[in-house]
């Protein structure tokens, strides 16, 4: 694998960029693999990469129905943060953030992780109470966080409107959080995994499983049957469809989530700004586009697009908080399918089928977990036992009630 750096770039420039290697192969599927990963998104590719790099398991295939990184990996708003309140969440998201911090170097592929910080806003007393609780918990978990008063917020985000319909009373800021180039995360993992021997097989749709006596024996695909004793299902919005093929149900609802970007403009916003009360989720990409997270549709759907009213309803809050956005133009909108659990926490778990593990339920916030999720899932697949960080995220919690309720933790107004 050609090492990427300024020297190889110059060297290849001199040969008119005619000699760059392909970043990953397009191999034919083999008859048998030690482990098959279903789903070539960021989480699946990360899983494959860590299986090869940390556990030396390289006879691995990643099966992707379409093209790698084409689902939610390429459709999110690219935010990475770990400011979660519950210990279980804090552990996995922080694990992920730490991996992201060294990922460009580890993969030798610039994923452009930029720690420009994430700012959560408080608009009322209840928000402040909740923020104090969350902030204290985050700090006690050893994760960076600072409380900012309105003046400090204005300094950091000069174009924000502090005195709108819902005045800004304070904010919680995570300096190490930020954004990354989402596609590059998938491509970087793919390139390194491929180099270590993993077969990334695109345009290969899984159509069923060969299961005998409750044990998985292989995977049936549009490109033939593949034998394997271990399968990791990592396919987000399609998880319940794939699980159904393996004969079990998942406590998931798949709903479309939308996002949009403005036309590119010169830098106006250096950090990521989030407000639950006013429903704003905004950052500016390196290209200059304002990246705006919209909401989910209220109905279940597998179509990768959402309803217009969701887009329509995100505009007034954006203008309320950032009045200058009114004269900008929307460039593009798109949707992804989010697999939501009842407690808005993921499922990383064994399944009723021996040999099949599943990693899903990341819902509306999976991108930030890509590295950590792939890492602990790889460990779980390699060892046959769930990684300690993954253990609380078992499917069983939906039966025994041990929920990690990030939805509830967002709090409600009194």
């Amino acid at each position, binding site marked *: 694998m050609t090492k990427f750096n*300024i020297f190889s770039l110059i060297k290849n420039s001199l040969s008119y*960029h005619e000699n*760059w290697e392909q970043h990953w192969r397009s191999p034919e599927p083999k008859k048998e693999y030690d482990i098959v990963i279903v789903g070539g998104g960021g989480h699946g590719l990360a899983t494959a990469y860590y299986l090869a790099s940390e556990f030396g398991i390289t006879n691995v295939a990643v099966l992707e129905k379409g093209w790698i990184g084409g689902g939610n990996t390429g459709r999110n708003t690219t935010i990475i943060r770990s400011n979660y309140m519950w210990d279980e969440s804090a552990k996995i998201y922080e694990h992920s953030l730490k991996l992201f911090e060294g990922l460009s170097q580890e993969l030798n592929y*610039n994923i452009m992780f930029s720690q420009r910080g994430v700012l959560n806003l408080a608009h*009322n007393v209840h928000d402040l109470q909740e923020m104090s609780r969350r902030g204290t918990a985050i700090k006690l978990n050893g994760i960076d966080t600072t409380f900012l008063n309105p003046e400090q917020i204005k300094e950091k985000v000069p174009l924000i409107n502090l005195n709108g319909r819902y005045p800004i009373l304070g904010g919680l800021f995570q300096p190490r959080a930020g954004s990354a180039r989402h596609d590059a995360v998938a491509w970087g993992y793919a390139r390194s995994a491929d180099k270590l021997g993993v077969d990334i097989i695109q345009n290969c749709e899984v159509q069923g499983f060969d299961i005998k006596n409750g044990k998985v024996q292989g995977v049936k695909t549009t490109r033939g049957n593949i034998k394997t004793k271990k399968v990791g299902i990592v396919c987000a919005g399609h998880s319940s469809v794939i699980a159904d093929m393996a004969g079990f149900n998942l406590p998931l609802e798949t709903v479309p989530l939308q996002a949009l970007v403005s036309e590119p403009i010169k830098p106006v916003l250096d950090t990521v700004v989030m407000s639950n009360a006013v429903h704003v989720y905004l950052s500016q990409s390196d290209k200059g586009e304002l990246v705006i997270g919209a909401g989910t549709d209220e109905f279940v759907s597998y179509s990768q697009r959402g309803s217009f009213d969701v887009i329509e309803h995100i505009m007034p809050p954006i203008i309320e908080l950032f009045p200058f956005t009114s*004269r900008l133009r929307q460039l593009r909108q798109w949707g992804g399918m989010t697999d939501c659990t009842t407690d808005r926490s993921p499922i990383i778990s064994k399944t009723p089928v021996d040999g099949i593990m599943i990693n899903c339920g990341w819902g509306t916030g999976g991108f930030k977990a890509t590295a950590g999720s792939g890492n602990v899932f790889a460990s779980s697949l390699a060892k046959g036992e769930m990684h300690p960080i993954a253990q609380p995220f078992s499917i069983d919690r939906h039966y025994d009630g041990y929920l990690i*309720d990030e939805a509830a933790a967002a709090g409600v107004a009194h």
Partner: protein
Amino acid sequence: MTQKNRLPKGGRINRQKELSFKYDGKNYIGYDGDTLASALLANDVHLVGRSFKYHRPRGIMSAGVEEPNALVQLETGEYGEPNTRATQLELYNNLTAKSQNCFPSVKYDIGAFNRLISRFIPAGFYYKTFMPNMKGWMFFEKFIRRTAGLGKSTGLPDPDHYARKTVYCDVLVAGGGPAGLVSALNAGKTGARVILMDEQNEMGGWGLTSPNMQIDGKKAIDWISDMLSKIAKLDNVQVVPRCSVIGYFDYNFLTAVERVTDHLGAGNGGSKPRQRFWRIRAKQVILAQGALERPMLFAENDKPGVMMSSSIRTYINRFGVLAGDNIVITTNNDTAYFSALDALNAGAKVTIIDIRKDLKSDLLEKVNEKGITVHKNSAIVNVKGAHRVKAVEMMKLSDDGKSCIGEKREISCNLVGMSSGWTPTVHLYSQARGKLKWDEQRTMFIPDSCQQNVQCVGGCNGTMDMSDTLNESAVSGVKAGKLSGNKSVSATKHKAVSHTEQPPRNLWIIPGEKPITRDRKHFHDFQNDATVTDILLAGREGYLSVEHLKRYTTTGMATDQGKTSNINALAIMAEYRGLTIPEVGTTTFRPPYSTTTIGAIAGEAVGELFEQDRRTPMDAWHKSHDAVYEPVGDWSRARYYPKNGEDMYEAVQRETLATRTSVGVMDGSTLGKIDIRGKDAGKFLDLVYTNVFSSLKSGFCRYGLMLNEHGMVWDDGVTARISENHYHMTTTTGGAGRVYEWLEELHQTEWPEMEVFITSVTEQYAVATLNGPNSAKVLSKICKDIDLDNEAFPFMTFRNGTISGIPATVYRISFTGELSYEINVPARYGLQLWQEIIKAGKEYDICPYGTETMHVLRAEKGFIIVGQDTDGTLTPMDLGMNWIVSKKKPDFIGKRSFARIDTSRQGRKQFVGLLTDDKNIILPEGAHIIESKSIEPHVNMLGHVTSSYMSPNCGHSIALALIEDGFNLKGKKVNVATIEGKVYSASVVDTVFFDKEGKRING
């Protein structure tokens, strides 16, 4: 001032009305009817901007929505706007605009340094470098961010206002060219309600570009006005110019944006909105959006002065502008010949470079006759000139078209027109989930099938012949009218002068002097500076799928969304992979079709109309008594009433003491109120509350807890039984809407068989709550018809009566532990009630108090506030409220979850009181109870402080907390850590701090 390139006659401009405008600091004159682009070209200004990545000089390339280059910074100050397409910007008097993405000027741009290093920065170069470490990337990123972006935002609030409109129609026709006009006329004749929209300032589309084409025996330009007058006679057809249909969603829901007053100039819109956003539900849709010309990918094809060949024609015929007088037109098809002829007629010298080998067209003879030289089987290999085309260099093509051969010839010129075929505007069709098929002969994706009620006509349908277009449009118009339930009529018949097209030669890459990877740049996506070699590099590196290609090279991601680049990029990738174009696939067309003002989408829902600031009927009194407010959900509630310069702490201490000493009054109008009626109302409430309401006697009240399906508390409140089949429920202020929707959902989806009627009545009643030992005395002064004796009117009952003549319902319930009356009156009497109470209470020093004092008073009694003391993870048992959970009821929401292992286990987080060792320390809410005495990362967290106040009635600070196994910790010490890193010691106690025996409830 002369307009050098303005023709002496012709065009749709009003030469009587001169408009002055300023571009890059220089003054120019244009005419009414110009776009900024046509006015600049009239003044011989071609160089208008710098490209995104390499900062190459760029000129005006098109005459419409597809423009990738001519994006300008329009106006300054609050009306300023970045990235405006000069080709769509109608000129108005005193317009001011600047070129973008260049410093210090468009001619001398520092960013052009990137051109020097362009060899080192191909597609995706940033993935391969700038990564010594995290800090390193963030260092480089700063510079990248500054050079990226296009125009500048004003950073100021928008002075304009916008409107939204929702309409229903039988037939929506998108596009007002010849096809659209015929469609609308025919649909209109069926009697259908038709809306015809076009993004231009006038209808006519392609007809305005080719005004002399013969249609139905007339010149196109006359035929158009003929059609428009026929349409104008139909009352059922609405014609909307300056309106772009931009989105096509499910069930024929479409969006459009109308530029109502933009053309009048900044700030001249008067009372009219700047833009209007249309939401349209159409029974039938006809897409008549035409087709867009494709650029030809020869070396240096991005120089200012290189434009689409059809645009040259548009500028001549529509604006009376000949953008250059020495023109080279290069093409692979016939359409460019018409541009050549029009340019010649307008007085230009024209040379044609046709990449086709064997030409036997009547057109060829025609242009030869006129003295135009046609170089066959030839191609441009270089364009000379820095800020404007000076000449092209031309060579012969090899047989396979893969290389150039023979002598290089230079042809001097000041304008180049290019055409590489046409792309039907199938964006909306694709948004509608219509499937496309590839027409190899004509190299275009054309509509195939769609589940929605939509038809495509004309260029949009791949129908390039005018007669065919008009007749297919007529039939489609009639069909759409009929399918939307109107009468059948016969379609109009049309005949236009036809031209038999010679087949095009499809060379997606025009070869240069050197092999493509070593040649000068051949751009395919102009705004994003994506070149042919970028596509080849993506292919070489394995980014083979269209989506990978798009993301790796950024092709199609610019503000024009790939309108001119898409097919070229697909074709080159297909060629690289040895596949057909449909095998490579097409990317998804996403809304909006053209970029749309965010303010327009928001419409009127901004500023004061953003979200209502809800106020209670007593608000005038609070305001005039200097209340400090607190936002609670949508409401603004009085938080406290400071006197004599008190701060919140002092005011709340005074209010808290005064209420327990004598009497206090609070505005409780925001409390959620839901009226529940029907013969199954009791049964319904039994299922949504943990305790029993069907057994409640009329005239009595009961406190209830609502759980979610996980058995967790999510709302509470007192519900009274008014009569056998009638209950009055109260909820938390913030929960009112949520609870109401939940009850409706339950009724409609879970228990539709029940006879229950649920009505939100929150705003119907104003509520004043009297609290304190003297509350009965105050009330008795103004309420003579209710016996307030404790036995006659016991706790947890209600009575109807009158208060100073106002009909009222008085509830004896208490959120303070004091003798308390909650007085409900019709909302319109709220202020009067409040004033009567204040007057009557004067002799007892009645103290109005706000939400903060309410919090302290209830905390002294250990009453929970849902959402503050609970967080959706607590059962009634965790709150020590086992008494409220019915053991007898067969079912209620949440009951089944009590059987879960985690829900029923010992040692869960439990609700307790905390007393700090130092009575003056008020713990911060949100502080955490930790296992050790000092803070170290990953210290075990046992719970947190939910409520914390100084209690003047206890003479001690008090706190409520959730702690693991809290009930068993009572009497023990715990450590409480704050966000600042301090640790306090506190004792775990009972949650009731004051009046533990509950004696004060009866005064």
